[in-house]
């Protein structure tokens, strides 16, 4: 993993210096479960930024107009609105508790684009909602077996194609992605394409399946590629090639030798998300110890940065971090055993047009932007 020497993550072909902009959230050491951020999403213009938490609260931040007296500082994000999305409920008929956690926020496009939404709250089904019909949905994928004893695979994520409103993909716990076209059939139990990378037999272990489980799938803005996140890597796929990804980026390969411990403490089941930058030239995903990683697809360079209160001085540059994987630990490096596995960055978002990123670290939301030289 080559961290850029002088600091700064290359993205879009230019050398960028990422700087702290803002942090939202309490500083308390004791974090209430309800305050843990569970989703972060910019809207289509990037002027609005929404977060949802496990307590069902949605906070929407709005970007302030740029300050003319400080032309070099981008507009800040301040709270625009806060509301409780839904309360916890108990479904008496099914004897099920419906939790209030916000799983995902999707902004509606302002233009007259797709008016449909996919929901995958259930691991076994994908439902299609029309935005104007909110009391019922249409089931388009159902993988629940007749006999639950035969269940060995679940749906882990799903997303609509950004350009073709009839096409969507869904990922599974076995590391596969299926692309479906709703024009082919009403019930999309047959896929149009099936993406799976052949397993490397030399690295097979009891944990192979678990770490191949895909925690997130995201189309590129162009719609030509999609990205999948599994436990140790992010992979970029060309939609025209199902046999293997066109790119594989290691997020934290040093964890491979620790998989049993991570299985024991359940970290191996952590669901990391990933995102593209506006031009699809860079991708970002989170890791442990409040680290997050960026990969430039053009220059092949990558960088590890940290979201921490210590680096929270206004416009302070983020210094690249490095994990020591063995041998002598250099100054400023952190050893694998010193990583804090309770500080995990699962949710990140990249502004659709500019180099502004939002990173959720447990109950805090960090906003970073590049320094304009």
């Amino acid at each position, binding site marked *: 993993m080559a961290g850029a020497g002088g600091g700064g993550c290359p993205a879009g072909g230019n050398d960028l210096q990422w700087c702290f902009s803002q942090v939202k959230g309490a500083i308390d050491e004791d974090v209430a*479960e309800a305050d843990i951020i569970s989703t972060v999403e910019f809207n289509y213009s990037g002027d609005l930024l929404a977060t949802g938490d496990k307590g069902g609260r949605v906070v929407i931040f709005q970007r302030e107009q740029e300050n003319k007296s400080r032309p070099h500082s981008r507009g800040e994000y301040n709270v625009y609105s806060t509301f409780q999305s839904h309360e916890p409920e108990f479904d008496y008929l099914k*004897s*099920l508790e419906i*939790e209030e*956690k916000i799983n995902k926020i999707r902004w509606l496009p302002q233009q007259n684009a797709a008016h449909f939404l996919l929901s995958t709250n259930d*691991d*076994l089904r994908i439902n299609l909602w029309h935005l104007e019909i909110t009391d019922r949905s249409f089931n388009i994928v159902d993988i629940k077996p007749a*006999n*639950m*004893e*035969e*269940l*060995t*695979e*679940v749906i*882990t994520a799903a997303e609509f194609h950004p350009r073709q409103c009839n096409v969507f993909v869904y990922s599974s*716990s076995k590391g596969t992605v299926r692309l479906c076209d709703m024009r082919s059939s009403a019930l999309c139990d047959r896929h149009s394409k099936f993406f799976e990378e052949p397993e490397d037999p*030399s*690295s*097979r*272990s*009891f*944990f192979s*399946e*678990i770490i191949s*489980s895909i925690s997130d799938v995201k189309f590129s803005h162009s719609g030509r590629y999609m990205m999948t996140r599994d436990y140790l890597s992010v992979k970029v796929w060309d939609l025209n090639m199902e046999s293997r990804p066109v790119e594989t980026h290691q997020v934290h*390969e040093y964890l*491979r*030798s*620790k*998989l*049993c*411990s991570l*299985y*024991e403490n*359940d970290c191996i*089941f952590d669901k990391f998300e990933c995102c593209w930058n506006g031009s699809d030239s860079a991708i970002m995903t989170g890791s442990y110890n409040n680290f997050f990683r960026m990969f430039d697809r053009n220059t092949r360079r990558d960088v590890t940065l940290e979201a921490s209160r210590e680096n929270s001085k206004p416009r302070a540059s983020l210094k690249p971090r490095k994990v020591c*994987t*063995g*041998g002598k630990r250099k100054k400023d490096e952190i050893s*694998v055993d010193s990583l804090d596995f309770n500080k995990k960055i699962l949710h990140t978002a990249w502004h659709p047009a500019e180099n502004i990123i939002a990173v959720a670290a447990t109950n805090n939301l960090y906003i970073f932007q590049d320094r304009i030289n």
Partner: protein
Amino acid sequence: MFARGLKRKCADGEEDGEGALAALRAAPSYSLQRQSLLDMSLVKLQLCHMLVEPNLCRSVLIANTVRQIQEEMTQDGTWRVTAPQTVGRAPLDRLVSTEILCRSAREAEPPGPGLGDGHAPDMVSELCVVPSAQALQSPQSSVWEVDSPRENRGSFPKSLDQIFETLDSKTPGAVEELFSDVDSSYYDLDAVLTGMVGGAKSGHSDTLDALASAPALPPSSSCKDLGELDHVVEILVET
């Protein structure tokens, strides 16, 4: 999977002429760690419905892991049928199914008669079923403490009784002699199970060699629940 062609760590003078099983015997650490992983996984499955956020994906992945281990142990011949004198326990030559995933925390009663009857291969193991009901009543107690774990696992045949008798009848000095060729040092669980050795160096070097140089790590909390004697006795049975 974990490489089978392992060098012996302790040369005990016996001939190795029994193929794959012998290779496995020559690496007591592997089967120990595999058993430990199996135990850990089964405990996790029991506690699945006690999570704050029920997670079907996690449950399915754990169940699949258990299935993989059981398949391998069945192929090795180390997954043995329970001795007939364990009353009320069904034979454990079946694979664990994911039926356990269907049960919510509110189902306090044990599963119905449909289970445990001869549908192969997806029947629920008694192992999962009975402790589950009991775990609900006493969530803190270890599954293994409640249910005579060694018998449930099915990996200790009749000869176990003989071994215990032997142990009882020996003088203290003889008991030590009986255990003298057992290497009780703690192996790096991660190194063995993931097939990746020695942390610092990636690659697939011979596991036993690396184990010899790997620093001993303190046992994890879940491994502590398995008494040292369990491990020792298991080695004796498999030798």
